[in-house]
């Protein structure tokens, strides 16, 4: 039961909500970047238990990838726009789908810098380290069968009871939209911002490119000019995904879920929780603009987004989700 990987692509990994409460061990959280699309993918296959790291999914970054179902399975894909086939039949994303045994799922194309979350109903027999199956390509923590999936890998997925054949579809307004121009992301002040005079202005006035020299730990951002500040060295301090560190005279670094747990560069800003999902659909060549906001507004937006999500979820699915079971 499960899938056999025919073509793995080079950015396909097992993911879930990541490692919780391990930062004191130097262990990154990892996990998916867009929790909302991760939850929708799981909801569509009637996975409703999000305690701990939650159910495993596949995160696919580039096509083409191919999987063979070795038993009938219920599955769903969410995230970026793309081109998908079940055998030769074109299929939609953001909906519940049913595969027969030996059918081949092909994710042919994915929007540039996109991310697809593929949920398959059942209990995934994948290695869980520190309670999570999330792969971390930069450390010994891995998901199934190594870090990134490879051709011929097999993921065993035990059946967990029948799901009725009705098809649920998430409405279009719940799909992640990506604009063609610079992407605006809201930020709050970081711990050392007040010691870096020019940076506050630069963050709101500059347009930032994402450098090719980026990884799952963080995006290196390019600027039109060099910015210096007086904070040239600092004691290694706590950093979190979504933080922007800015070495004097160097490139700012926007930290992602696989980021290390301590950093030695000034923490000038933090992306608000309500905008973190946007990072799943950005990458080299994209441009960002930042907009300052307050902590109060960030808390309000976080609450608003979570409530909005919960309302839609409860309308679509038979099993209600409660705010407290979401780790967002």
């Amino acid at each position, binding site marked *: 039961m499960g899938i056999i990987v025919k073509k793995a692509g080079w950015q396909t990994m097992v993911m879930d909500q990541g*490692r919780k409460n391990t930062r004191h*061990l130097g262990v990154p959280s990892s996990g998916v970047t867009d929790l909302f699309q991760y939850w929708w993918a799981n909801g569509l296959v009637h996975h409703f238990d999000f305690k701990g790291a939650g159910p495993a999914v596949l995160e696919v970054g580039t096509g083409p990838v191919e999987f063979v179902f070795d038993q009938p399975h219920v599955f769903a894909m969410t995230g970026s726009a793309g081109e998908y086939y079940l055998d030769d039949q074109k299929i939609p994303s953001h909906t519940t789908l049913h595969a027969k045994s030996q059918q081949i799922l092909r994710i042919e194309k994915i929007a540039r810098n996109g991310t697809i979350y593929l949920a398959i109903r059942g209990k995934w027999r994948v290695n869980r380290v520190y309670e999570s199956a999330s792969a971390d390509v930069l*450390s010994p923590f891995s998901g199934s069968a190594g870090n990134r999936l490879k051709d011929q890998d097999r993921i065993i997925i035990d059946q967990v009871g029948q799901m009725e054949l009705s098809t649920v579809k998430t409405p279009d307004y719940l799909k992640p939209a990506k604009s063609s121009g610079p992407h605006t992301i809201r930020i709050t002040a970081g711990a050392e911002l007040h010691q870096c005079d020019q940076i506050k202005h630069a963050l709101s006035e500059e347009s930032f490119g994402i450098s090719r020299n980026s990884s799952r730990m963080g995006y290196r951002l390019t600027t039109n000019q060099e910015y210096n500040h007086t904070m040239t060295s600092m004691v290694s*301090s706590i950093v979190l995904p979504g*933080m922007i560190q800015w070495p004097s005279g160097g490139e700012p670094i926007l930290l992602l879920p696989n980021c290390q747990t301590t950093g030695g560069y000034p923490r000038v800003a933090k992306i608000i929780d309500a905008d973190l999902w946007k990072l799943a659909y950005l990458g080299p060549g994209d441009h960002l603009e930042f907009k300052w906001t307050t*902590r109060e507004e960030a808390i309000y937006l976080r609450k608003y987004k979570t409530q909005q999500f919960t309302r839609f979820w409860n309308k679509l699915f038979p099993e209600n989700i409660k705010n*407290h079971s979401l780790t967002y």
Partner: protein
Amino acid sequence: MNTFNYQIFALSERCLTLQLEPVISEPQIRWLYALRERILIKNIRGVQHVWVTFHELTIQYDVDVVNFERLQDNVEVLLAERPHDMSQNMTVKPRHITIPICYEDEMAWDKDRLVSHCGLSFEDLIHIHHEQEYIFYMFGFLPGFLYLGGLDPRLACPRLEKPRQNIQKGSVGIAGHQTGVYPMASPGGWNIIGRTPLDLFDYTLSTAPAIDDLMIRPLDRIRFTPVSRLHFKALEGKTVNEYQKLIKTT
């Protein structure tokens, strides 16, 4: 023992940070770990995770249960109760851990650089290095990377200008006034003085270890003991715990 000047701020929408002077000091980090313990013992509603770095303690909390202001009040009350003797009353007592280290040329990648920068012979460097007792301050940078305090100032040496792509697992490094141990192969810019054959951290556990179950716990006292190339080979793959038992029985 005195309390420290601190400030409390929101590190993010759901993280509160208490920050001390930006220095690396044993009394300061001991105080932070003691505060961490007291916060956990108090079982403050909504607190999900508390962790310490050199000069900061961060609390991640559930915003649906507690807000920043209330949590700040809770922390301030704890600080006002017994600010002076916190470190003396910690329940987790530091242990003495011995870590074998091989200083042979093929493991001391930055021997020449250290000799030239510190102005000492390598024999003297080795002597100073393993005579010293170190304190394990915190994990950071990598899963299980050990930041150790207590480096003799004569061994201080700036980081490499160009970091290496692949430092070997177990390498013991010096960067400025800090020393640390790479528990896994990784890129890095620390000056490598030697290597330990031991496994320092367990990357295979299905659940994260509690602090008490770690092979090396914060504030433990660490001593390096020199071993030969041959002895290094014989010890490869042993854990810190296995080695402590081994040296007790021999």
